[in-house]
């Protein structure tokens, strides 16, 4: 049964081609998070339900930043090894620290030498937008889960897993990251045996 599903999936999604989740049309290039939810967290007594539109609008900008970050950091082979465009999404002191955390926040400095392709990038994004005393968006937390298969040059596969929380604020009209916590938990997938799955 599992084998049937795998074959069906292979046919549906074109095998080794990238799988793009329904994260909306605003994702850069070939990656966009699936937006699981956006909600407002007001500093005032305004009910969050009355700030849905505000949160949604801010959420679109925040999603743009997070889509761009993970696209540049993992999916875009042209950015591998040179993640300047990704680090531009961090604000102030966070930028220097992000550069120092390159091995966790990106596919790594030697990605070009280590990997051939990246397949099946997918991710979930949940956003909480804090609004200020005028009920305008001021800060946000974006919680992300990202996963992809990175094919190594030695034909092995590394399953990339990045789970994190990012704090963002508006800087010159764009949402930038000023704090973060990210965990990577990559797994190595052994090469499948020639006989295939026992199912």
């Amino acid at each position, binding site marked *: 049964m599992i084998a049937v599903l795998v074959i069906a999936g292979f046919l549906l999604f074109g095998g080794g081609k990238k799988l793009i*989740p329904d994260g909306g049309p605003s994702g850069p290039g070939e990656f966009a998070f699936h937006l699981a939810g956006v909600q407002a967290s007001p500093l005032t007594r305004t009910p969050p339900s009355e700030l849905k539109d505000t949160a949604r609008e801010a959420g679109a900008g925040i999603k743009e930043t997070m889509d761009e970050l993970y696209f540049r950091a993992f999916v875009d082979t042209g950015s591998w090894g040179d993640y300047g465009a990704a680090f531009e999404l961090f604000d102030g*002191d966070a930028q220097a620290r992000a550069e120092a955390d390159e091995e966790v926040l990106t596919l790594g400095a030697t990605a070009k030498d280590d990997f051939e392709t990246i397949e099946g990038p997918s991710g979930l994004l949940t956003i909480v937008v804090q609004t200020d005393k005028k009920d305008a968006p001021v800060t946000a937390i974006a*919680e992300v889960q990202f996963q992809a298969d990175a094919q190594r040059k030695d034909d092995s596969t590394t399953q990339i897993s990045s789970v994190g929380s990012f704090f963002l604020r508006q800087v010159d009209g764009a949402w930038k990251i000023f704090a973060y916590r990210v965990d990577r938990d*990559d797994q190595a997938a052994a*090469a499948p045996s020639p006989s295939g799955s026992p199912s």
Partner: protein
Amino acid sequence: MRPRRLVAVLASLAAGVAGLGLATLQATPAASVPLLQIGKAHAEFAPSLQGDKPIFILVLGSDSRPGTPLERGLCDSIHILGINPAAKRATLVGIPRDSYVPLSTGGTNKINVALAQGGAKGMIATVENLTGVRFDYYVITGFDGMKRIFDALGGLKIDVPYSFQGHEGTSFQEGKQTFTGAQALEFSRTRKTVAHGDFDRSMNQGRLLLAALAQFKTEFRKDPTALFKWLAAGSRNVATDVPLNELLTLAFASAEFGPKRITNLVAVGSIGTAGGASIVNLPSPNPIFQDVAADGYVLPKDIPAENAPSG
């Protein structure tokens, strides 16, 4: 008031990702082969406080009732919060509300009158003149605000150091428990049934603040969105001149300042009377005020025994 811009710099942000199981990920590539863990790694960054100069915040509790401006009540709770970013230490110094001191608005009276007579500015100036501390910010709340804050947070987890009867009849038992907003308020206001009266009350008010900090730190580690919940609860129920950006920085920084790095003490003095009313005469010069004003904190070993009443 001495204006100062807080500078955001590196620090650790403890933020969990509870509730976001990877199992919910969509479109996970088929991987019917064994997986070997090859690398766990972690990165984090958060703004924090920087610099050699201490930051001082005057934390006030007004007895104004609902509908009355906070700044027109008597000040039932007065605490200096000193923060030394470089040493990563902080100190809470409680000033008994009955302290008989020169007021910035003129004359000598109980210090709690300074708020009603001169508003926040008058209160700040009075405490500055008394202590030599120059405040960067102030925070003030009232009875109702305090109850609402802790109720909005789902209660306050606190370790009560000794059992006593609250002034409204609540029997506070020694040990760990969770206060409702009303219980927290009663705990912080009870004076006559604690051993050292006004001094113990002030100490208990400090305990509440430290318990709140510990709870914030725990919740923030589990779920970073807790930060917004705490900011909202505070923002709706306090008046302050701390700008939001700097409040955020302080909030992040407070995750660094565990309760063990914060000293809680009370400026004690001798009991006397003035015009038939019970008052506290604080020593002058006061070594506690001098110590905290110098660098923003007092080490536990430097606290005279009389400045840490009842626990």
